[in-house]
């Protein structure tokens, strides 16, 4: 094959990845484990070189990598250069520059094994089951049946609640009795106790327009914050609010 040298280099690369690295920390852990070195005594030059080689490899393979990887590369190089500098005279003995990377690495390793331990627990819906299998485990199945409703259905529902309000109640432009923020925390408390409520139920205690509007805004804000999700089985059916 008389391909240009660049391509020849490409061809020599073989994919040896067992698992895709989640991020720079993951890659670093992999390199350190592979080198079988003590995390408190990382041979920074060796690891940095391997790390940079790896980034180079990713570039060659046209794998996009996030800036996080580059940032870590610069951190490593920075530590490496610090290690090369002779300790300055007269200065207090400084911390090992490698601590900059050792500390977060230890934290990351701790989290990693915490995650492994979580995975080994008796997971509900996998290892252990309850008498009534939790519907929330089957969310993706339910989703097929539930029609996600749009803004207009929500507004229609709002309109029908407004219609129920006695006309004698005029809109008066005084300030809010209750802020949207306050209403959100009230609704959160209600929903925490009930898990799911109908749209109408949430308006039951609102007798006046400002209350209704604040409640409606609170529901919208909560949906935006992902605190709740809103579902309706059939286009004209009851709208239910579920607390996450």
């Amino acid at each position, binding site marked *: 094959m008389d391909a240009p040298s660049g391509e020849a280099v490409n061809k020599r690369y073989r994919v040896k990845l067992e698992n895709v690295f*989640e*991020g*720079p*920390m*993951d890659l670093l852990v992999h390199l350190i484990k592979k080198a079988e070195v003590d995390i408190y005594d990382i041979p920074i030059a060796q690891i940095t070189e391997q790390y940079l080689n790896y980034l180079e490899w990713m570039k060659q393979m046209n794998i996009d990598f*996030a800036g*996080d990887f580059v940032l*870590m590369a610069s951190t490593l190089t920075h530590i490496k250069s610090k290690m090369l500098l002779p300790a300055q005279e007269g200065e207090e003995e400084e911390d090992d520059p490698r601590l900059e990377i050792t500390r*977060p690495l230890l*934290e*990351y390793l*701790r*989290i*990693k*094994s*915490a*995650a*492994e*331990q*979580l*995975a080994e*627990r*008796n*997971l*509900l*819906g*996998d*290892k*252990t*089951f*309850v*008498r*009534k*299998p*939790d519907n*929330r*485990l*089957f*969310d*993706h*199945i339910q989703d097929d049946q539930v029609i996600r409703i749009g803004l207009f259905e929500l507004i229609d529902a709002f309109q029908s609640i407004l219609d129920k309000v006695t006309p004698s109640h005029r809109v008066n432009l005084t300030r809010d009795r209750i802020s949207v923020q306050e209403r959100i925390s009230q609704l959160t408390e209600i929903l925490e106790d009930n898990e799911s409520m109908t749209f109408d139920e949430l308006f039951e205690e609102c007798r006046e327009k400002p209350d209704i509007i604040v409640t409606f805004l609170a529901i919208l804000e909560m949906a935006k*914050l*992902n*605190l709740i999700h809103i579902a309706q089985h059939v286009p004209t059916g009851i709208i239910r609010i579920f607390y*996450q």
Partner: protein
Amino acid sequence: MMDNDNHATMPEDLKYIIESLLFVSETPLTVEQIKKVLENVDTPTIKTAITQLAAEYEQRDGGFVLREIAGGYQFRTQERFNQWIKRLVKPSAPRISKAALETLAIIAYNQPIIRSDIEHIRGVDSGGVIRMLMERKLIRVLGRKEIPGRPLIYATTKHFLEVFELKDLKDLPTPKEIEELSQSRLEEEPEETENLAEASPPEPEAANTNDTAAGDSEKNVGYPEIQ
């Protein structure tokens, strides 16, 4: 009158009344809930009854046991029967990915926590994973932190405790325990399953023939009928 009834039946029946409540309840039943039903029984008495029940189920070592979950008590099937149950109930939610578990661990151990702190530990963008964890109700938004940008604050949910079979957050292994556990796991790497019941369902016939002679027949009597 009801009080008299209660008192008369209390010693023997209390345990079974609680058992019936636990059986009916769809979510982990708390001592407070039981107390509300029983009206004038104090907490220690209820707790003693529950402990006794749990011990009985534990000793029976049958299909299910009584576990303390998310601040309450709930019947849960034993792990070794999970393959059978999975034949009956619909496939459960997809496995939680490694990235999601890591993120969840960070939130569980550091809550309340904002996204940038999560990403600081993981070293990668975690927006997608966080959204997924929210959708699966394993984490929730507690509010916003009053710093520039007003980032959302995350914490784990009660559902998280239910899924991971935890009594409460304190039930999570401590950092020290994590270290010890992962250490010991490294040492005993090639570990073989000695629990035959864990074998996948297609094999039980073989398991059964082996076990009729074995001492632990208790655990496997169920198989012939199921087959």
